[in-house]
């Protein structure tokens, strides 16, 4: 494991991500570069931390699914896209940029 400062671990330094949309639901997948960081992510990248990061953007609940074969965490965020791509007035109605917002989360060391 690398890139851990005094203040914490920047998710961007240990993982990559992808966001997708379906209706008003955004899902963001997070996968560590190094498989040895999987347990750390499972323990620390909680739905609470993700919900806190997206407060103001996401109005509904956040769920998390584990995909151990890929070392992937799949976050599903409801009420995430201002009603959904087809009617949202947001600049990024798909939430494509959410994957980058996710990676700025700082996890405790």
């Amino acid at each position, binding site marked *: 494991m690398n890139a851990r400062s005094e203040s914490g671990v920047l998710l961007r330094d240990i993982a990559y991500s992808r966001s997708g949309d379906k209706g008003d639901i955004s899902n963001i997948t997070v996968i560590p570069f190094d498989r040895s960081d999987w347990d750390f992510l499972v323990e620390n990248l909680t739905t609470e931390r993700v919900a806190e990061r997206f407060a103001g953007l996401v109005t509904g609940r956040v769920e998390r699914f584990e995909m151990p074969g890929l070392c992937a965490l799949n976050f599903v965020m409801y009420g995430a896209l201002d009603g959904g791509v087809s009617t949202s007035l947001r*600049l990024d109605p798909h939430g494509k940029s959410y994957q980058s917002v996710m990676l700025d989360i700082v996890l405790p060391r």
Partner: protein
Amino acid sequence: MVNSSAQNPQVAPGGPTVRIGCGSGYAMDRLQPAIDLAASGEVDYLAFDMLAERTLAQAQMRKNVDPATGYNPELIPIIRAMAPFVDRGVKIIGNFGAANVPSALSATVEALRENGVRNRVVAAIHGDDALDALRDLDPEIPDLGVSLSELGERVVSANFYLGSEYIIEALRQGASWVLGGRIADAALFAAPVCHEFGWSLDDHDRVAHATLVGHILECSTQATGGYFADPPRRVVPDLHRMGFPMALVRDGDMTITKLPGTGGIVDHRTVGLQVPYEVHDPSAYLTPDVTADFSQVTCVDEGPDRVLVSGARGRAKPSKVKVLVGVKLGHRVTAEIGYAASGCVGRARLAADTHRESVRYVDDQISEIRYEVVGLNALVGDRFESPDPAEVRLRMAAHCTTEAAARSLATEFDRLYIHGPAGGGGVVSDVKSMIGVYPVYVDAGLVEQRLELVES
């Protein structure tokens, strides 16, 4: 066309292989990578996914204006490009028909003939149009909390998501080109796999495996390095000329790869990210063919730009089928103006206040209006506010019940040049009709499909 590895030494060992390429990932995708795949001789099928959630409702609106339109506007260029390869035996499958399958069928037959393709069977799959069936049923639209009939003439389209069954039947009857309307994205790819291997649609694990092929390929370069680059950590070579993905599918696993010499990258990261893409619970991904379980899928690098994928499981398909209903919702207007240097955020906010007051006279026709400062809070929301950047754009977006009101908002925004704060430049604005798309789940027994075959 199932190749054994003995006859076809370039494919990986491990039994018979079906070779499928992605032709497009959305309605206006690049054509050259599809041409490259078709010309390579490395794929037996090319599947084109041409529909996103909104595409069909928009196509229906075009058809309402001109009944001869409503199929994919790129269909003819695609046929022109693919004709020589269809003649050599490459088979094409796509949801090219959008809102007008009959017209797409006749246009396809004609264009194939014009391009020298004779005696090939073109198949059209009818039956995705759900409007009549839904009007009889009059279901509630959960997202809107009203019944279909309450929306009256605002309902412009309703389409069942169709599965693999009729594509397989078309291929069985010798079709070289298969087209339809709202065929589920993954089914376009899953069908030729099931057809070539002779798999029954009741063989859930195998259908889930075939569905995973489609799920990985259906967004074109998202499996080969698109939507991934983030230097310096994530570097993708030659983004401007990435190859489209192809799958060498075997019973139990598959190799995802791309043509040598194309840009992009195929590895466990680019393919692995695509497995959960737009999937919610990975153990229950619902499609018209199967309830797929991708939760145990693995992606392993087996060589440069080659990834071995396996592990999909399946259960019976859902008893309900998804219908997407398109609803006219007035007009959307967006506009932007730029401000620079010290105080730019303050002037942008003053411009927003000025514009808001200037359009009070149409308030009764504005259902929603928002202002945001691009460079500050447009993508991430106010909670991530930071100091004044060197320049910003004020963005206004509104939803109006009338087109006239939307145009008034655009005109008033334009007037910020001279009536607004100092130094506002580069106004752009846009007014579009707005169509909301909403899912409804109905009994799968309501779907009545029909196959039409025509020889070129």
